């Protein structure tokens, strides 16, 4: 994967996904070890270009780069020249001219990461482009599922909530179906994309049938502004009809794994008890996120060997 830009899991082969997960397992050992500093990317420079707010993804990429010995600089929307009206092309070319090896980009515009690959030469890693893709999040979801379930193939994975606006859902669907999991989607019809028909993906009429006997439930964040734009009437009703709480959770398998990309709206899409319950791997996901991002940076910038 040396030199490969990471745009979305639609352009990953199952073998490439396995390689990332395997490398991430090695990286995870380092994070939990004492001295978190590898020489792999010493002398390499990475810029995190975050044109949309983010805490965990940005910090996660930043630490991942630093643990591997790279020099990492983060640029936020509010401090970038984008606010002065500089175009994305010129911003990217400016960063490239400073000699960086990789640009990690978060942007609300779908296709912006792929656009970046056409504009500049450094490795581009998509840290979320609008509602299109969030490959590192999907890979950490796969990593977490495999960690707890020992496999991906044959698992019943429910993804519930705002599928329409979710880059996480799209990347999860591509990644998981490639690895042989079956996907079950549910949420209010207003938050489900129309014409979403793929092999291995079932769209359900209600939450209950989607999560029935599920091995994994990935609960997507509901943005509160969706209520103002008329997509659902109230947080209270959403929680009652579509929220994942302990009662509803009983429909799934006893050892169902609960994922959430965060940040959570407790009491809306997920109850407090489920966030902190025995089935929750939400905090494990965050640690795994660093390992997966280390794997991606090492594989694309260093070839992953050694």
């Amino acid at each position, binding site marked *: 994967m040396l030199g490969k830009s990471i745009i979305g899991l639609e352009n990953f082969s199952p073998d490439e996904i396995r390689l990332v997960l395997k490398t991430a397992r090695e990286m995870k050992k380092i994070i939990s070890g004492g001295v978190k500093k590898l020489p792999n990317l010493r002398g390499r420079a990475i810029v995190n270009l975050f044109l949309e707010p983010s805490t965990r993804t940005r910090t996660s990429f930043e630490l991942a780069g630093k643990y591997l010995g790279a020099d990492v600089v983060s640029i936020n929307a509010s401090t970038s020249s984008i606010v002065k009206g500089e175009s994305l092309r010129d911003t990217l070319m400016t960063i490239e001219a400073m000699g960086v090896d990789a640009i990690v980009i978060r942007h609300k515009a779908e*296709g912006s990461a792929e656009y970046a690959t056409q504009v500049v030469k450094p490795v581009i890693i998509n840290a979320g*482009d609008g509602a299109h893709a969030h490959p590192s999040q999907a890979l950490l979801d796969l990593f977490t599922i495999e960690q707890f379930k020992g496999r991906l193939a044959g698992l019943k994975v429910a993804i519930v909530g705002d599928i329409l606006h979710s880059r996480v859902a799209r990347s999860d669907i591509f990644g998981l179906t490639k690895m042989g999991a079956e996907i079950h989607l549910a949420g209010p019809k207003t938050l489900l994309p129309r*014409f979403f028909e793929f092999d291995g993906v079932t769209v359900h009429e209600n939450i209950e049938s989607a999560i029935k006997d599920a091995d994994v439930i990935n609960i997507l964040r509901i943005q509160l502004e969706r209520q103002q734009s008329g997509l659902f009437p109230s947080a209270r009703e959403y929680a009652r009809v579509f929220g994942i709480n302990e009662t509803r959770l009983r429909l799934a398998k006893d050892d169902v794994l609960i994922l959430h990309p965060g940040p959570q709206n407790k009491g809306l899409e997920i109850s407090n008890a489920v966030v902190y319950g025995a089935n929750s791997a939400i905090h494990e996901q965050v640690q795994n996120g660093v390992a997966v991002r280390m794997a991606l940076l090492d594989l694309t910038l260093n070839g992953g060997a050694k």
Partner: protein
Amino acid sequence: MSIHKFHANINDSLIIRGGRVIDPANKIDKIADVLIIDGKIAAIDDDIKMKPDHEYNAIGKIVTPGLIDMHVHFREPGQEAKEDFISGSKAAVAGGYTTVATMPNTSPVVDNAALVRSMVARADDVGIINIKIIGAVTKNQAGLELAEMRDMIDAGAVAFSDDGHFDDNAKIFMNALDYLHGTDKIIICHEEETSLVKDGVMNEGRRSAILGLKGRPSVAEDIAVARDCLLAEYTGGRVHIAHMSSARAVEIVRDAKKRGVKVTAEVTPQHLTMTEDCVNPTDASTKINPPLRTQKDCDELLKGLIDGTIDCIVTDHSPHAAEEKDREYIYAPSGFPGLETSLGILLTDLYHKNKIDLPTLISKMTYEPAKIFNLDAGNLSVGSWADVTIIDAGLEWIVDADKFYTRGSHSPFVGRKLKGRAVATIVHGDLMKLL
């Protein structure tokens, strides 16, 4: 490619020898010579004996009335970085067009007689092709108050449109139809119900579901077309549906026509030949409103074009500056320049694939639009202005943005290998050779 003036003196006589003359207005389709004297068609005959000042050998080529495009954006006044009357006129000549009508969504909006008058004068000044002026239906195209359409008619406006957006306020739109009663002017309607397409950048369909881009559902067009057909029926007013893109909307127009409603419709080459699958979010050239839809829509549009539900073909020539289109898909403006590729696309993707015959195709680009807009153009009748397009239907060429006359650069047709194009364009007897 470059445009060469063939002869200096417009009063010189010219014979176009031996081409296949297709003049749908006069139901002519035969090999003939066309004689032009004093800028007017003097004769069309099998073998004209006289010795003119100039001859053009059109053997193996097609000779048609100058093409008409009633839907272009020449961006004057105010947006000259995108296009102006000169660059737009040259693009028209290169594409075989001799008459165009400009949409009023400029800065400022063309919504009053003073502006119409200045643009008519500017069109005369530039004088490369015939440029007709379309005025706004409502002040500033805001959809709130009627613009002074009767003043604009007297100043030379040929039609009215709030193109670029749908007039959500049904009462204002109905008033506009009523207010034009007694004139021969039509309202050209951009048909997408606003609330359903808000923030949308491509067709709502399987492709948008994968890409995560926000959709503009076809039902938004269907609702708008249905409303305007109903209002045309109710008021007796004349409605012209701009750039149709939805299969269902074609059915609605077909039904309205059967009921005798005064509705006409147009379609673009892109909506006839491209689908949502062409959308790539790294290249905003495919971003247009209404959006590229599905193969089923393309098929129904073609069916409607052939059965007469859709009357004419327009380009919706919408150039933007390169830096405006070279950016994130969601931020780029909609539209691309179409004048220089339209004929080539239609010949390549429809005529050469036996989906349409030449007389029908030419009629949709000459006679039909002239009829809808009451233009003195679109035919080769003896005595009329000699606006003529000479087409080489077999000429192969590759679309190259560097060779465009338009200031717009981003077209989804760039790089395509096409078969057929205009090789000479004559405006009022003034022959401009293109190759």
